[in-house]
């Protein structure tokens, strides 16, 4: 497949963009990565995702696909010669989709809010995130069946959905001065995180924590310095 037949609009720091990149790597798909400038949106982005105006957007030929988990499933369904990302078993697929949705709807939103929160609210968020990790540890034990990943021997849908969030998890731990992923409490996940980050499909697209920290500080500064929103 010609390289310019597959384009991905994204930003290096986005965990959602990373999901698409990992999936394309798993399938050995050549693609052109079009980096959006933070703080402004290109014409191509506004045209190909007029509804949400967000990255990632996968453009296959002339067809745009939006929303990270929709993109991952699309990649899995189109490039069938590569390893499967979702299970072929219907029930297992439902479980994989459930956990990916849990991460996006409940776990990640709570984790993102930790840094900006204070006092009781902050503690509640930390408790929610830690509780979530305990649930994920249990799920990992069940689905990995002793292998390295939620997907077994290979990275699968839950690995991609969760692993892409590790960078920002570490940023929250460092800047928020809180331990979330704890070897004593979730040893399986700690080992899994190492395996995930070392995987060939992930290594080249996982941003360095230090760079994410700098980026995060810049974002926070921008938000504080921004004029108050109009009602």
């Amino acid at each position, binding site marked *: 497949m010609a390289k310019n037949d597959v384009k991905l609009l994204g930003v290096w720091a986005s965990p959602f963009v990373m999901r698409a990149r990992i999936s394309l790597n798993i399938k050995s798909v050549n693609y052109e990565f079009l980096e959006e400038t933070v703080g402004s949106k290109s014409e191509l982005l506004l045209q190909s995702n007029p509804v949400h105006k967000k990255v990632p957007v996968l453009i296959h030929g002339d067809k745009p696909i939006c929303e990270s988990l*929709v993109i991952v*499933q699309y990649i899995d369904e189109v490039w069938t010669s590569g390893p499967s990302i979702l299970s072929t078993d219907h*029930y297992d697929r439902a479980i994989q989709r459930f956990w990916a949705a849990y991460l996006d709807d409940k776990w990640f939103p709570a984790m993102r809010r930790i840094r900006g929160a204070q006092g009781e609210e902050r503690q509640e968020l930390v408790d929610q995130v830690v509780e979530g990790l305990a649930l994920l540890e249990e799920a990992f034990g069940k689905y990995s069946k002793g292998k390295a990943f939620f997907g077994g021997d290979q990275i699968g849908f839950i690995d991609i959905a969760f692993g892409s969030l590790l960078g920002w998890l570490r940023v929250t731990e460092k800047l928020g001065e809180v331990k979330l992923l704890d070897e004593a409490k979730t040893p399986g996940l700690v080992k899994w995180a190492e395996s995930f980050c070392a995987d060939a499909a992930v290594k080249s697209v996982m941003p360095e924590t230090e760079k994410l920290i700098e980026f995060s500080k810049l974002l926070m500064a921008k938000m504080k310095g921004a004029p108050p929103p109009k009602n």
Partner: protein
Amino acid sequence: MADEVVLVDTWVSMFGMRVRIALAEKGIKYEYKEEDLCNKSKLLLKINPIYKKIPVLIHNGKPVCESLIIVQYIDEVWNDRSPLMPSDPYPRACARFWADFVDKRVYDVAKKVWTTKGEEQEAAKKEFIEAFQILERQLGDHPYFGGERFGFVDLSLIPFYSWFYAYETFGNFSIEAECPKIIAWAKRCLQKDSVASTLPDEKKVYECVVQMRKRFGVE
């Protein structure tokens, strides 16, 4: 081997309606268990410990949660009849995108229309109409969001129609005035048995919302 299918649900839930429409489309026989959300059963807490929410489909003893995940599961397992998802990956991705849009941009703002007042309610009404105008543009001149046939996106959205009377009454606005094509589309969907037999009477939904508002202290 006969399949054992149980649906744990509540009659007024638009998420539960999605699953019931899917089961009806596929002609699947199932046992329906009505859940009292003010007094959740041990069964619900066992089969959906993380969210403790309905709907939950139990297929041969195994629970599936989250309405859109359940609908895709039903479509994939009973794949020999009445397909709900398109067969090609690109239209399938589009269907998933638009169903996700309904969840992200319609549900929360619709809830605010009947749970808030004053400025907050006005803002919610505006967002609600905007979301439906986007959906109208997406529908275009097709009879359904699925094109010529009723599909995943239609199924994801149509349950909200049974709540329109409640939204309009509490929000004091007309959805038909702003989005006539959506109303026309809804009436078209209601001609299907699976939809007509699933959607509850809008006045009954309204009465239920009146009770919920009292419980939430909105009055």
